């Protein structure tokens, strides 16, 4: 059996001959400022940041089986934290960025403490309630968040050092920021990936699969759910911090519930049962949005149609559908 088990659970042996897709995709994305237009880099930044946002949600949705309708709260808290620290307190980016993640994680731990006491739809509703409270505070607290005016002109980080690198000297600041954002997103995603494959991640999976049974193998279900909620909130905060800078300002709609819906749609569109699904969802949804809004102003109509088709025809999302197609092809080849 050990040989059998080796091939089933022995991911390391499989990775030996696998194409390093993640590295290839990363390098291709990294080359964007040199080979693409300014607009491509703009889109690339947005996709990278949303990928991290959606992947952080999927730690809850796909890995732990928790449906959070309020994930935008932590994205927003991260962007406000980073924006306020950089613009008003004049803290350098390399401090403000991790601080934003930490602050978002702290809020997630505080709200999550109450949320994990509930299950299913009640859990979802409570996450939504907390996110709307955060939105109301951001919208009204003029002194801190700029209220409905938001927090415009969040400065770019000081990237003078990057211009000294060969090949970076003629880059605009937005393109340099893209490179920085891409590297930070890649590091965060690598950490999330590692986490998902760790024993901790496995415990989260048992909770998704069967919380009752998980408790009876000794899992403190609420504690692990809270840990997942906190970590997911932290990574959402990091993505929010980057987005505020990219967007040149932080506004209350970052925290609004529709933002939570957007990121959930990305996650489900890409496929929540696959680690990279949410990133694919972020990519596809962002590109579609750009393409379709050029032709029609009825983007929500198109989005709704896509969702309906998706839910009925490809419930596993894009990567889920690809999986099915690939396994059918290989079966046909075997036959």
């Amino acid at each position, binding site marked *: *059996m050990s040989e059998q088990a080796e091939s089933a659970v022995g991911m*390391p042996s499989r990775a030996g001959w696998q194409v390093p897709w993640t590295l290839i995709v990363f390098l291709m994305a990294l080359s964007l400022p040199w080979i693409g237009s300014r607009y491509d880099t703009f889109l690339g930044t947005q996709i990278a940041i949303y990928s991290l946002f959606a992947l952080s949600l999927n730690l809850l949705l796909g890995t732990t089986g928790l449906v959070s309708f309020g994930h935008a709260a932590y994205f927003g808290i991260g962007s406000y934290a980073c924006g306020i620290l950089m613009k008003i307190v004049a803290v350098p980016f390399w401090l403000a960025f991790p601080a934003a993640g930490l602050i978002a994680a702290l809020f997630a731990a505080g709200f999550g403490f109450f949320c994990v006491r509930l299950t299913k739809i009640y859990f979802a509703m409570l996450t939504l309630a907390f996110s709307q409270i955060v939105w109301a505070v951001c919208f009204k607290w003029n002194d801190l968040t700029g209220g409905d005016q938001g927090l415009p002109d969040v400065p770019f980080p000081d990237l003078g050092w990057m211009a000294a690198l060969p090949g970076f000297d003629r880059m605009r600041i937005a393109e340099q920021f893209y490179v920085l954002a891409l590297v930070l997103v890649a590091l965060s995603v690598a950490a999330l990936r590692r986490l998902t494959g760790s024993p901790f991640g496995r415990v989260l*999976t048992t909770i998704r699969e069967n919380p009752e049974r998980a408790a009876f193998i000794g*899992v403190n279900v609420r504690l692990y759910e809270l840990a997942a909620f906190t970590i997911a909130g932290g990574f959402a905060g990091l993505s929010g911090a980057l987005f505020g800078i990219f967007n040149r300002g932080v506004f209350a709609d970052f925290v609004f519930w529709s933002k939570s819906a957007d990121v959930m749609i990305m996650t489900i569109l890409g496929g929540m049962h696959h680690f990279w699904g949410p990133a694919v969802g972020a990519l596809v949804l962002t590109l579609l949005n750009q393409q379709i809004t050029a032709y029609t102003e009825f983007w929500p109509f198109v989005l709704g149609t896509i969702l309906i088709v998706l839910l009925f025809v490809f419930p596993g999302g894009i990567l889920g559908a690809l999986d099915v197609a690939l396994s059918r092809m290989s079966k046909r080849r075997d036959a």
Partner: protein
Amino acid sequence: MLEISGLTKSFSGFVAVADVSFTVDTRQIAAVIGPNGAGKSTLFNLITGHLRPDSGRVLLDARDITGVAPHETCRMGLGRSFQRTNIFPLLTVFENLQSAFLVHYGRGRNFWSRSESFYRDEVEALLVSIGLREQALLLGGTLSYGNQKQLELGLALAIDPQVLLLDEPTAGMSASETHETIRLLQRIADERGLTLLFTEHDMAVVFGIAQKIAVLHQGHLIADGTTEEVRNDPEVRRVYLGHGLSQ
């Protein structure tokens, strides 16, 4: 080993378990029987901390575990299986058991290592023991019903319990599956020196392996003793009249 005294639980007026007391000695195989709705599952849920009793106490190895949450009773050495099979359907059989070992050995706080390489030997030994060696790579949810029951037993055993509670371990099984399961249970209980408490509706199974039987009827304990005592108890005979208890 397991001592239950005065356990009572009612649900909005309906008394499901009324003042039930009995003990199971170390390495004893004990059964709780009773007609449907007698309160067997409620009793199990009270013992494992799934439900909190209105009154009464549960002692595991002289430690009070009344109302203690399942993940803690589990750590104190109380394993259980469920009437309705309860596994991790989208994990492989190997991963199912490996998860239980990871939790049992306190690896859940490891955020960094790859989980694949942990406890392969332990999982393999357990797979052999419960007879699922060949199915290691299949998803739990795709197994046959009997195999899922075996897997569930494996999950309960992985936490290395002192006391094992099995809720209808042969429910829904064919005669041959039932026979195999009983032999498996007996062997494992013997090998590991387990104390076993199970519910069962198949009287042949009960009288075949139990050393001690407690009989529940409408939430009340109406008999508690050796198989011989219970078989000859007039009250039990009255409740089970026509249910073939004497066979």
